[in-house]
């Protein structure tokens, strides 16, 4: 992710917020609108960020992961069910992460051990997740009449959340904070630790890594599991932090937007985060436009993240360079 592209993204986000402020109805002060749009952006961006980072770990080690959607969906279900049964949010959170990892295990098993094509493996997980969660929801959940365990409480940052205008931005729930922390940690891990180096080696040139003694298989399994766990956290966001109920298809394509964000962000943590914020801002703009009564057909704004990704992939705004061995099953000779 070049600095130029990063700045471009940040500039676009600011631009979108500015547009929202300009479009506002005159009775709301501009700084309130700006803060509100920023807060909305962060809310939309949280699951996308987590999903993108999840994909990042997998892909950096050379395993294509289009199953982020399925992992998040399954985790959302697992998290809610566990929390409702035990009436403990902590257990629900754990269950979400574990469910994600379970899906990741399947993905790794199929694509690393069986060397099934990784896209097929990802597709399988998506279909499986949709089917299982839908089935269990109708057959078991709706008949069980469980009460939700509630939502994760807000964790306002002590001083900053009292600020007059910017305050609401710093009043977020745990998983939203974690998503930011995960971005920072991932950046450090990926680029400044030996683990990260090994991961990237396995993703760029597994043959060379193998000859140096790095176990390609172990690294890939590990990274897929880590990534899937993060995706699990993203899934838990939907049912433990956003709303206290599970809906079928609650992820609603966010996993694919996360994939787009990862690519758009050039397979780097900060890039992915910036992309997620961009997509979140576009969504926020669309909502605000409706609030102000401006008739932008919502579908055009809805297309925005997807069009951007295609443009990026086509190299119009810089190239999108994936890890070199991304998608290639590794065979030890």
């Amino acid at each position: 992710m070049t600095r130029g592209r990063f700045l471009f993204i940040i500039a676009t986000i600011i631009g979108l917020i500015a547009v929202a402020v300009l479009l506002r109805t005159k009775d709301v002060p501009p700084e309130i609108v700006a803060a509100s749009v920023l807060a909305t952006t962060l809310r939309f961006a949280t699951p996308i960020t987590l999903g993108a980072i999840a994909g990042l770990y997998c892909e950096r080690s050379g395993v294509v992961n289009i199953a982020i959607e399925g992992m998040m969906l399954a985790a959302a279900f697992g998290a809610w069910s566990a929390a409702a049964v035990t009436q403990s949010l902590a257990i629900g959170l754990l269950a979400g992460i574990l469910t994600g990892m379970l899906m990741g295990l399947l993905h790794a098993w199929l694509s690393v051990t069986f060397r099934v094509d990784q896209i097929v493996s990802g597709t399988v997980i998506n279909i499986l997740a949709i089917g299982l969660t839908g089935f269990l929801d109708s057959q078991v959940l709706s008949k069980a009449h469980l009460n939700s365990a509630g939502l994760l409480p807000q964790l306002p940052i002590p001083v900053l959340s009292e600020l007059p205008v910017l305050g609401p931005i710093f009043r977020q729930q745990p998983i939203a904070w974690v998503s930011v922390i995960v971005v920072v940690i991932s950046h450090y891990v990926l680029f400044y630790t030996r683990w990260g180096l090994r991961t990237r080696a396995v993703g760029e040139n597994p043959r060379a890594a193998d000859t140096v003694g790095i176990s390609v298989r172990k690294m890939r399994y590990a990274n897929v599991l880590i990534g899937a766990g993060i995706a699990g956290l993203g899934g838990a966001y939907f049912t433990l932090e956003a709303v206290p109920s599970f809906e079928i298809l609650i992820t609603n394509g966010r996993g694919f937007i996360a994939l787009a964000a990862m690519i758009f962000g050039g397979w780097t943590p900060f890039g992915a985060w910036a992309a997620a914020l961009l997509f979140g801002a576009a969504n926020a703009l669309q909502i605000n436009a409706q609030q102000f009564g401006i008739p932008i057909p919502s579908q055009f704004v809805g297309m925005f993240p997807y069009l951007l990704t295609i443009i990026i992939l086509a190299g119009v705004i810089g190239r999108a360079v994936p890890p070199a061995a991304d998608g290639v099953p590794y065979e030890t000779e």
Partner: protein
Amino acid sequence: MRKSLYAMLLLFALVLPLLAACGGGTAAQPTAAVAPPTAAVEAPTAMVEAPTAMVEAPTAAPEATAAPEATAMPEATAATSGTGTIKIGMVTDIAKLGDKGFNDSAWEGVQQAAKALGVEPKVIETTDPNDYQKNLDQFISEGYNVIVTVGFNLQEATVAAAKANPDIKFIGVDQAQTDVIPNLAGLIFNEDQAGYLAGVLAASVSKSGKIGAILGTDAVPAVWRFGEGYRAGAISIKPDISVQTVYHNDVGFDKTFSDPEWGKTTALSMIDQGVDVVFGAGGRTGNGALLAAADRKDKGVYAIGVDTDQYLTVPEAKAVLITSAVKIIPDGVAKLIQTVADGTFKGGNNFGTVGLAPFHDLDSQVPADLKTKLTDIQKQLLDGTLKTNVPAAKPGS
């Protein structure tokens, strides 16, 4: 030799189910009794005195070529059916049951009527919009006498089925009939009136002068009318009030009414910008708006529910839910089914009752004169002296 035999046996095993299929005929009756989910909704009581008889339809239904004659609903009679067992079925839209609103209340009405008649009703939840016809056919081929279809998406299939099966009675919830088909009764409501009342209340209790509504999609007339009625009612109290309406149009129908997370984020966006009354009118998406208000309870935000008394169905929002704009679906459905049993069923449009749900915990925050005003306005809406001037559907593009 052994391997090929083994393989042949396996292939044969696969063919067996096909044989079972061709065997056709009656399948063994499922041992598990069909246990439809019981709706958690109690019979809602309209806060304002609702007339016990159903309302007469205005003779000029807007944009309809032939004004259907609506019938005044008869009083619900005790179960007197001696005409043999009546089979009652219901087909939902893809939002399925468990929406704590629309579909659930229709099901509740069906169950109510069925219980009074001493029968077990059955429900098919549609999962694929291509299946409406098929699901209806399922009931038709099994000889059901009354089929209730829920939601205006099923209108076309219901009309076709009604025309093709004149001996079966159909009840279409939220399906406004333009022609009178003798065996098809459309149960419709004046959502704009309920919305109007909600808007009056909202404008009166709002301190910031900004109110908002989170809605499913303006492509569904009932939803759009809720929103526009809300706006009209609010403006009648405070002409310069700011009414923000946001529709979840950017997703397909399968998500429009089942996206509480979007509803919550959008409502929070409104609240952060000064809105202090939020009307959630979009199935589960709207429920998210109620949760957002609950989240910001310290700011003194109110929430208004929709379709049923959501105080009972979304308990997380109890502290901020001031009322709900209700359409009393269970009663309407139950009464219509009763007419089938009595033989007094009439096709065409039947209007159900609308009103506001009780104020519950926030009752003390509604001043007495406001309560009186709401009662008066409801009377005027019902007898036609006050009009909301909201058309039946969003004017075409």
